[in-house]
């Protein structure tokens, strides 16, 4: 039962020991801290960078241009907004060089709300990321998916963004969803979590975990249902699943799909499900204007208009300049279970 942050760490270990990862770097990514969420503890290629996101992204691009395989971290996606020009340049590298220069780099960054992060530890990045051509974008919500998608991100010859829902980083995997080869919880912690106090002599003992790549572009159906399709990713998946389980008691069967890959995304899976349920709600945390969920709504009405028995819905973050610190402010700014349940219920009950 590893946590997501342990799963990422194990994947990065596989990356640097078997897949050619040369650099894992960013602010406080190296020893002694190993990342503000501990995602990079004990990794032999992890190093600390200056406090300069532009330098982090630029250096990762240069490393990739020189045939290295960097994984760079922006400490919080809230602090990636001064690098959009570089991210666009990275996404254009293969195209503008007439196919000469591939850019095998991974950018990982924690996203989303749910930890009382106030204005600058609550941002989502999915709308911004999906509007940048030339990047693949993944966003896991379980340790196993985080492990498998990180391996795929590392293996990919293109720039890949790995968006980690920060509120889930310390959550444990569900029974049956362990990473093959991971030892029992307490043992794993002993082996790969850095000790408190002096770490200068500590080295991790990595469990032997396999090359389980989860393909980029494959969604995962986390709950089957006939009445409504609910498409979410990241922190919203579990909340939608919970809402769906409760609605089952009302006789409403919701199908919950975890998109997992935002670009390319698994349209085949969405199409199949929406064509079956004829009702769909998309849920994400990003602010609601020019939101990636709106792309999915557009695609839906473009291709499935006559399959729909109710208007497709989007539940997203409020269009406010930030998420306020006080609970009441966050509650009205980010989709909550109550609103999700209500939305799904309305969809299911909706009479055309």
């Amino acid at each position, binding site marked *: 039962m590893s946590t997501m942050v342990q799963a990422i760490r194990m994947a990065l270990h596989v990356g640097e020991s078997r897949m050619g990862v040369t650099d894992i770097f960013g*602010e*406080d990514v190296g020893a002694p*801290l190993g990342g503000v969420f501990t995602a990079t503890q004990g990794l032999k290629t992890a190093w*600390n960078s200056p*406090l300069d996101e532009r330098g982090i992204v630029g250096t990762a691009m240069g490393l990739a241009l020189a045939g290295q395989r960097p994984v760079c971290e922006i400490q919080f996606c809230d602090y990636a907004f001064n690098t959009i020009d570089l991210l666009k340049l990275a996404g254009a590298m293969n195209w503008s060089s007439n196919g000469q220069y591939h850019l095998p780099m991974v950018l990982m960054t924690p996203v989303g709300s749910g930890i009382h992060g106030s*204005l600058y530890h609550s941002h989502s990045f999915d709308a911004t990321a999906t509007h940048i051509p030339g990047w693949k974008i993944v966003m896991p919500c379980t340790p196993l998916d985080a492990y498998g998608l990180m391996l795929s991100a590392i293996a990919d010859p293109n720039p890949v963004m790995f968006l980690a829902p920060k509120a889930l980083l310390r959550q444990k995997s569900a029974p049956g969803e362990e990473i093959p080869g991971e030892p029992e919880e307490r043992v794993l912690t002993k082996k790969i979590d850095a000790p408190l106090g002096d770490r200068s002599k500590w080295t991790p003992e990595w469990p032997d975990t396999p090359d389980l790549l989860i393909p980029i572009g494959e969604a995962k159906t986390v709950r089957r249902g006939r009445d409504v399709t609910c498409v979410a990713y990241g922190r919203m998946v579990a909340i939608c699943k919970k809402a769906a389980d409760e609605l089952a008691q009302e006789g409403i069967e919701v199908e919950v799909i975890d998109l997992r890959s935002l670009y390319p995304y698994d349209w085949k899976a969405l199409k199949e499900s929406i064509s079956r349920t004829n009702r769909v709600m998309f849920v994400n945390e990003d602010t609601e204007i020019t939101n990636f969920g709106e792309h999915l709504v557009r695609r839906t009405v473009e291709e499935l208009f006559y399959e729909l028995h109710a208007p497709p819905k989007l539940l997203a973050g409020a269009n406010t300049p930030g998420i*306020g610190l*006080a609970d009441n402010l966050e509650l009205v700014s980010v989709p909550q279970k109550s609103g999700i349940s209500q939305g799904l219920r309305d969809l299911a009950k909706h009479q055309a």
Partner: protein
Amino acid sequence: MSTTAVHEAPAEGALTREELLKIHDLMLRSRLLEERLIRMQKQGDGYFWIGGPGEEAFNVPLGLLVHKGEGLDFDYLHLHYRSSATMLAMGADPVDSMRQMKNTASDPYSGGRNFVNHFSIKKWNVVPVSSPIEVQFSMAPGTALAQKRHGGRGITIVQGGDAGTAEADFATCLIWCSRPQQELPLLMIVTNNQWGISTPANTQHGERNIADRGKAFGIKTAVIDGNDPEKAYAGIKEAMDYVRNERKPFVLEANVSRLYGHSSSSGANFITEETDCLVRFEQKIEQAGLITRDKIDALKKRLTEEFLEASKKVREEPQPDGSVAFKDIFAEAPQNKANPRTNGGH
């Protein structure tokens, strides 16, 4: 007693007994306030703490030397999240910091929206402290330019940490404040605690002194001991006087301590390895006979109780309701001057 006598007739430029005691009082208040805020967070009366314990010896003199007020004739302050001592020295109410810590509706700085020590006080030209590191250095040239044009003695003060100088904004500030014939009355301050969260400065920064970066631009620079309030006072005053009178920029670097680690995320426990400017200063004024240990202890006790009581009251103050999330997004637009004949074009 001689030392006292010396302090009754202070040497040229030196601080008077009263001034030294005032500084001590403010340093102590600031320290105790931060320690109260840390407690509040640990007790669950707030989600996150970050602040300035260890910078009092520099930040209190800074606050005392600010020309305080609203508008171009007064100093503009672009500070960061370790500036509580500067705010208290300027006269901010400690209770308001507790309100922001507890994100109450009564938090005057952000209305319960932002983290503690993210000040915003328009009547004193204190512009909003923002979480993103160093961006204040990109905005500071704007207020300074307005002041340059306006004339008078108002200046712009911008402050940040050492690691943050690696961000673009620090270089932007150097360039924009030193344009030929356009030099700006801008005091750039780097409070260097040798840390960026867990990363030691000497592993990332090749500069001997960060302030040296000003030299290529012909900007005056100085590096001072920020753990000694007298040296800090003198150093800040000299830099400020230059900026005020010459209407030109200055880069001031001060060595300071980070006494409770980076933030509550790193535990917010007292770090014994770092110089404690307050302890050092109290020994000094005690030995100089300016104050007795008993007086210090009594003051400490009184303030501790006062802050504890205040924090209890703050705990009872109402939280903002959800509607506050949607307030203040846009300022009122002026009434529409448009000519109906053509407005909207139809």
